[in-house]
């Protein structure tokens, strides 16, 4: 051991901090044994440090800590879009597929219903009022023009018979326009409203033909049988 060893200020301070390697520590220990003044300084350092270590800490008030805890909890809650991102990909993909399937099924069902004229047929058809102006008709125009002559036209009255007749005329018009779907609906409505409709034989003829035109041969056959029964009764 070198008896003339004198540690540098950094070496002494490192020794105080306890970060000197063992060999150097032994040399400094020997030096301090010979130099009580240096040993005293290091001792005072330790005392000062100890005094401050024991210094009581100051603390925030409880309500402040409570606020901090609330904030911490709030920061853990993800926002809406972040929550969406947190959904596992497989689960998200399953949701997307399900939404598409539901949309597809809804659309398919809608298409199926709209392609079948009888499926959507209302139990009571909404028949728009037919604006019939006798003055425009060749047969009645002259009569209407005669003053004081009262014309009783079944089409201008509000009786149920008049309504049926209007509906029947409209149905025939639709048939002539080759709108067999709407014509069939209207024939059906007339017969539901009044099974004893006096032009029913003629109506059935148009109806059966409309159904044939639509390719509804089964229904057409059914209507033919009904027609036969009506004719037999008559």
């Amino acid at each position, binding site marked *: 051991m070198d008896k003339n060893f004198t540690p540098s200020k950094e070496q002494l301070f490192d020794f105080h901090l306890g970060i000197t390697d063992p060999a150097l520590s032994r040399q400094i220990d020997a030096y301090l044994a010979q130099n009580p*003044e*240096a040993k005293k*300084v290091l001792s005072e350092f330790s005392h000062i440090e100890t005094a401050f270590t024991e210094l009581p800490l100051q603390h925030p008030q409880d309500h402040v800590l409570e606020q901090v805890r609330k904030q911490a909890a709030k920061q853990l809650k993800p926002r809406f879009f972040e929550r969406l991102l947190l959904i596992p990909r497989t689960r998200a993909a399953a949701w997307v597929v399900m939404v598409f399937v539901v949309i597809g099924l809804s659309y398919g069902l809608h298409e199926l219903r709209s392609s079948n004229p009888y499926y959507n047929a209302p139990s009571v058809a909404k028949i728009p009022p037919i604006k019939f102006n006798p003055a425009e008709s060749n047969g009645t125009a002259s009569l209407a023009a005669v003053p004081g002559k009262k014309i009783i036209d079944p089409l201008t009255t509000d009786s149920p018979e008049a309504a049926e007749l209007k509906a029947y005329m409209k149905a025939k018009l639709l048939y002539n326009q080759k709108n067999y779907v709407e014509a069939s609906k209207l024939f059906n409505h007339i017969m539901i409203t009044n099974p004893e409709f006096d032009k029913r034989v003629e109506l059935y003829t148009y109806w059966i033909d409309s159904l044939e035109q639509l390719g509804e041969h089964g229904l057409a056959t059914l209507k033919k049988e009904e027609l036969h029964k009506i004719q037999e009764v008559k």
Partner: protein
Amino acid sequence: MDLEDKDYPHIPNEILFNRYRGGDLKAFNELLKRMKGLIYTLIMSYVHNHAQADEIFQEVFFKVCKNKDQFRESVSFKSWLVTITKNTCIDQLRRKKHAYKMDSLDGHNDDDRPALSEKIATPDPTPDENLAIQIENKELEDLLKQLPAEQSETFYLKVVMEMTFEEIGTSMDCSSNTAKSRYRYALDTLRGIVKRKKLLEKAV
């Protein structure tokens, strides 16, 4: 991994904070329990006002929670927290235009300080005495105020917060060697002040 309440006090700060980031609120409460006194006292060293310290304390932890994803595990949690605390204190002081209570660094240069060896070599009036310190808390606080700001802060972080020089360097934006030098000067200055005030008295 689920932990029992008794496990939390033994978990390092960084792991606790990671657990908080993963949704563990108990981990945060444990961190708060550990840090509240240290951080509040540090704040008080800047503002010397409880109302303002409460406000800053809340702001510090709000920043910690809000910026939780910016924390890097390679940095010590204590350093990160101290950095946020310091910056928040300085911002607040700037905003409220209060004087920085700690001594200004103006005109101070560490290199002007007398060397530790010179101090050690200076004959003490009572060289053979074993010394003890009997200093009141208030006097200790006053002692710290007499140090330059960086030394005072370094001393507080080292002794009270038990941070390493690496951690102090990170939070004070300097090297660990600079932190160590500042600490050495702080300790040496404190010893000088204590001796002048005759606070060091005979133990026996």
